[in-house]
């Protein structure tokens, strides 16, 4: 590996926001759209969210049932593996803690796979979606989530790269083992911590 790239000086450490993980840049007010499937049209009146698998009480919530639960807000940053970060966003939704308290993961539960109506999946250690770290989000910066950004509802796990925050999410399968999801089977890291630059398998 080259020690440095001839002629590249970068933008200087002084200007670098400490909220940016290594290798990320600030996309400002832009919110890029990335996904591997056609953008679905999902009607909130037929949308549901299910927690199933290794739980005591498999449970499905409708849109109205979900909105009757206590709302919870995330204010902070999001980080995409393609190297953009967007700082200072605000999302509102329902904490997964609230949903898992109802479904009650069994003692041997260790991981979850989030799934979307498109067939998209992503895997997460159970520990990464409890204790106020994960949401089913409905709004971003005060407006309903657009279709492009996963509306009407997406998973939000902002401390991991954003492919873990499954768009058009329709449920969680609780498992007693790890099971790679869509991007994780296609070369991306199983956990995806941006502060450790866990971008690809082997990082």
């Amino acid at each position: 590996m080259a020690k440095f790239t001839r002629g590249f000086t970068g933008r200087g450490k002084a200007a670098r926001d400490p909220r940016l993980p290594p290798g990320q840049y600030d996309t400002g007010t832009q919110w890029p759209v990335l996904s591997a499937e056609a953008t679905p049209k999902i009607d909130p009146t037929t949308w549901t969210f299910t927690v199933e698998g290794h739980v005591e009480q498999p449970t499905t919530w409708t849109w109205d049932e979900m909105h009757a639960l206590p709302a919870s807000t995330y204010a902070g940053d999001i980080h995409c593996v393609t190297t953009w970060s967007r700082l200072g966003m605000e999302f509102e939704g329902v904490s997964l803690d609230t949903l898992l308290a109802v479904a009650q993961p069994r003692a041997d539960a260790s991981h979850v796979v989030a799934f979307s109506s498109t067939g998209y999946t992503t895997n997460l250690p159970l520990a990464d979606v409890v204790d106020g770290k994960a949401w089913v989000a409905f709004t971003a910066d005060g407006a309903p989530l657009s279709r492009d950004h996963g509306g009407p509802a997406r998973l939000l796990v902002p401390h991991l790269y954003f492919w873990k925050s499954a768009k058009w999410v329709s449920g969680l399968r609780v498992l007693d083992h790890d099971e790679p999801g869509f991007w994780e089977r296609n070369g991306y890291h199983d956990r995806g911590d941006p502060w450790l630059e866990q971008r690809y398998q082997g990082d």
Partner: protein
Amino acid sequence: MPAVWHSATVVAVHDETSRTKTLRLRLDAPSGHQAGQHFVVRLTAPDGYTASRSYSVASPPDGGNEIELTVEHLDDGEVSTFLHDVLEVGDELDVRGPIGGFFVWDATTPALLLGGGSGLVPLMAMLRLARATAGEPAPAELVHLLVSVRTPDDLYYMDELRDRADATVLYTRATPPGWARPAGRLTADDVLPHLRDDQAIFVCGSAPFTNAVGDLLVDLGIAPERAKFERFGPSA
């Protein structure tokens, strides 16, 4: 093949359009890529600061050590500005890849390729692979490429795409003189002559382009699982 770091040497640079260049890189080992995959380019400053961006490979898999990356110059783009204005033949770059195991095609099963603007790049690797393995023009029952660009000045790889039986160029804002199809967005009438029941469909471009194509495919009754999408956000 896992994504590994390579030292790459720039062996050629040429202009595709006024804002886009293709870099030819020689890696320290065979690239091992499939058509549709991308590489990360990482720039490192003397103080250790790094900036990385992903670029699709435009060249087809050929077993060799060289790859071509096509890079659009984005206003205020930290990496693309360096690659356009500073990088010279002979320079070394750190690159990582190949990356992406989903949006790939091996030119053995039928495919329809739909690209918008810079979304053409990974599809060009696919078309070039098909031509290399099945002859040129590639047979209609194997592949057809439709590419949508704003104006004639925005078309990459023009010499390989204009007036070819296996490729159709659509202009949305301005056409070349005497062009039969008026300027306009991709419609069902553009797609239908090339659509076959046995094709996988690869769609690559901006979010507005890929969303419009996605809606078009739904309207044509195409099962969502037949289509794979790669959306390009701004990548400065």
